[in-house]
């Protein structure tokens, strides 16, 4: 069964091709259902392979399926090959599973859009690229998927390209991602230079046996970290993700929460032996990049008023947790949090999409409030997502976040403190969002109509077809949209069971299932923490985590619902620490000057050299051609003189005759 792993990317590719060819004829909504079916077919294959791998002994749960030899160039032998192992199949399960649910939601959300079938074409292409990314047997196949998701991200963010901000956001995402891609490419070159192969098994084998020098391993790791910072939106390259919210909401859910942004964390987990083989300060750097990003993004999320911006910064923050986990050697915890985050963040984004849909394209939370009566299902599922991300037991986010904090504590206290503070902030801003949207006073009645009109007039084409001006009333979304919400809410609620810790009387048969499953992949890299203080005081850490979550929750409750404390939302946070402006300023002024200097160097020196050679050749040629006078007798004379000279040379100098 595992030999059929190529079917996982094949289905979305087929869906893409079919919609490309017949999309217009299929139309709305059949193109959407076709795309959804393609992704669920992949999911079915992934499930089948999962059970196949599960039935094998642990050390045989790895199959390489080579489709064909892709780049046979001298010693560079690259196959288009897939690696079916516990990690890639787990990734496929949630990419296709949650991706399928998001496709289904999008059928409802995108209903009536003039480019309906094109949207699903891009979505299927995206899922294809993502499965290629996770299934790749070597860095190049992964990179193909990596670039593919980047491209699809660009296409989907700027899907409503007639809107200026959407077009700009798409470009921003693409350009920022290029910086990270550059790191991945250099890492590939370095890997090939030192190991002679781009294949993960070979590379990891070299790292495990110690034949990979620590300096090279550090170089590869840091370059991959740069790539991960681009794709997974970490400092300093996170700034594309909040802007990416310009895309349709299912895109935000699929790409910028559940799948694409996990690519960086996945890649780092994939090469975990290389990270271990690096210098000691390299994992520490990774951990701090993650920790600082987590805290930094959480502070920004405190003061955002756009319903999707809050979720975007929260995504950056949560992925910061995953990177922190990777840096502390908690690969299982990182993947665990990735899976639970995929479920609850997809849920939150789709919930937000449902709210936006019901509010007729209103995204400002200040113009919402008290929506739970109008959208009971959306509200109930959103609340599950909120509890999960806030880390309230027994919802899924609690278990995975707790595992990360445990490893952070075992590694160093400052990392743990940053993690806990972030947890408080997370609970705080998510509670704030839930209150502003679903509780409190309804603030939309007075604003709704006056804001609605210019919104539609701005774009060239009306985005939604069911706008009902005059009588504005939020409404619940159709079943095709709330069914995925309910399923995701179920996953977000109980997702923690895949990796329960060994505390609090949890039956021993159900503990650490994910760790068991991932064991062959992370065996070498996973940090050993048994015997540390943190491990022995697990229960205390859990109590602290719960207290942190509840503290953030209660605090937000008093501030935003009871209004006992004045809200504190400094402009510094609302503006994202002016990071965006700083980058724009830097790129606009010294950066621009620098690039202009480079451009001038290119024009004057590089082009000058090329043009100079051409001019020299031209001058020589026209000088030579001037000797062709066209007088036959002159030629004859030259020939005659030449003959005499040759004869003289033979007779006088060579002495012939």
């Amino acid at each position, binding site marked *: 069964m595992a030999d059929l792993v190529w079917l996982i990317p094949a289905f979305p590719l087929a869906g893409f091709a079919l919609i490309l060819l017949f999309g217009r004829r299929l139309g709305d909504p059949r193109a959407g259902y076709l795309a959804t079916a393609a992704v669920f077919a992949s999911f079915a294959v992934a499930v089948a392979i999962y059970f196949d791998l599960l039935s094998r002994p642990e050390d045989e749960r790895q199959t390489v399926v080579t489709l064909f030899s892709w780049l046979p160039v001298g010693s560079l032998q690259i196959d288009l090959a897939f690696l079916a192992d516990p990690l890639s199949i787990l990734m496929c399960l949630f990419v296709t599973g949650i991706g399928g649910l998001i496709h289904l939601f999008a059928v409802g959300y995108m209903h009536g859009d003039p480019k309906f079938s094109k949207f699903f074409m891009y979505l299927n292409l995206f899922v294809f690229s993502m499965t290629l990314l996770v299934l790749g047997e070597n860095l190049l196949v992964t990179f193909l998927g990596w670039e593919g998701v980047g491209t699809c991200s660009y296409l989907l963010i700027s899907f409503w390209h007639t809107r200026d901000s959407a077009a700009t956001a798409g470009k921003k995402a693409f350009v920022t991602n290029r910086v990270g891609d550059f790191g991945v490419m250099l890492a590939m070159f370095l890997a090939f230079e030192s190991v002679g192969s781009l294949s993960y098994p070979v590379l990891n084998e070299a790292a495990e046996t110690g034949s990979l020098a620590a300096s090279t391993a550090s170089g590869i790791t840091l370059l991959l970290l740069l790539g991960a910072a681009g794709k997974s939106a970490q400092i300093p390259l996170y700034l594309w993700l909040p802007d990416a919210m310009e895309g349709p909401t299912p895109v935000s859910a699929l790409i910028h929460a559940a799948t694409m942004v996990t690519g960086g964390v996945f890649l780092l987990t994939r090469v975990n032996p290389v990270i271990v083989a690096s210098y000691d300060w390299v994992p520490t750097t990774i951990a701090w990049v993650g920790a600082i990003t987590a805290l930094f993004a959480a502070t920004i999320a405190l003061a955002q008023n756009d319903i999707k911006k809050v979720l975007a910064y929260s995504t950056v923050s949560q992925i910061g947790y995953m990177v922190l986990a990777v840096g502390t050697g908690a690969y299982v915890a990182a993947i665990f949090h990735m899976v639970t985050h995929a479920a609850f963040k997809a849920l939150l984004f789709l919930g937000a999409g449902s709210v936006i849909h019901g509010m007729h394209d209103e995204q400002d939370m200040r113009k919402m409030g008290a929506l739970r009566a109008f959208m009971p299902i959306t509200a109930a599922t959103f609340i599950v997502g909120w509890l999960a991300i806030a880390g309230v037991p027994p919802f899924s986010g609690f278990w995975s976040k707790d595992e990360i904090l445990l490893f952070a504590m075992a590694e160093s206290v400052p990392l743990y403190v940053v993690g806990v503070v972030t947890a408080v902030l997370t609970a705080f801003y998510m509670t704030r969002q839930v209150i502003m949207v679903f509780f409190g006073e309804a603030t939309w009645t007075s604003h709704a109509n006056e804001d609605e009109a210019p919104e539609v007039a701005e774009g060239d084409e009306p985005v939604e077809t069911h706008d009902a001006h005059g009588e504005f009333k939020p409404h619940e979304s159709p079943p095709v949209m709330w069914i995925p919400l309910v399923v995701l809410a179920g996953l977000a609620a109980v997702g923690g069971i895949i990796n329960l810790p060994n505390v609090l009387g949890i039956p021993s048969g159900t503990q650490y299932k994910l760790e068991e499953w991932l064991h062959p992949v992370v065996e070498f890299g996973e940090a050993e923490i048994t015997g540390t203080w943190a491990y022995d005081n697990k229960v205390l850490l859990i109590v602290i985590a719960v207290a942190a979550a509840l503290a953030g929750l209660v605090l937000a409750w008093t501030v935003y619902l009871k209004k006992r404390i004045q809200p504190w939302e400094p402009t510094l946070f609302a503006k994202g620490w002016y990071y965006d402006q700083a980058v724009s300023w830097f790129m606009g002024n010294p950066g621009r000057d620098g690039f202009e200097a480079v451009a001038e160097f290119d024009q004057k020196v590089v082009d000058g050299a090329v043009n100079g050679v051409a001019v020299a050749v031209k001058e020589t040629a*026209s000088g*030579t*051609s*001037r*000797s*062709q*006078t*066209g*007088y*036959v*007798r002159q030629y*004859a*004379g030259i020939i*005659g003189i030449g003959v005499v000279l040759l004869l003289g040379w033979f007779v006088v100098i060579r002495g012939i005759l």
Partner: protein
Amino acid sequence: MIAAIEPTWYLLLAAMLFGIGAFGLLIRRNPLVMFMCIELMLNAANLTFVALATQLGDINGQTAVFFVMVVAAAEVVVGLGIIVSILRRRPGATADDLAELKG
């Protein structure tokens, strides 16, 4: 009995013919005359071949002469054809007038 003519004389005659031919080629501008000069030089070479072949008793020299004659005949056919067609188009043209391909 007249004394046998030494081969040296033949060679001397050939050299003179060749010199006249080469000189004529360089100073005359009429294409037809230039052509005749070329023929003169070819025949000077032929005379050298024959003279030396006789002196050395080697038949190969005479064989070469036939080759030269064949080549010269072919050359005359092509060359005269070109000259006639040029003169038909541009009556009175000299070799120096035909300088369209100069650099």
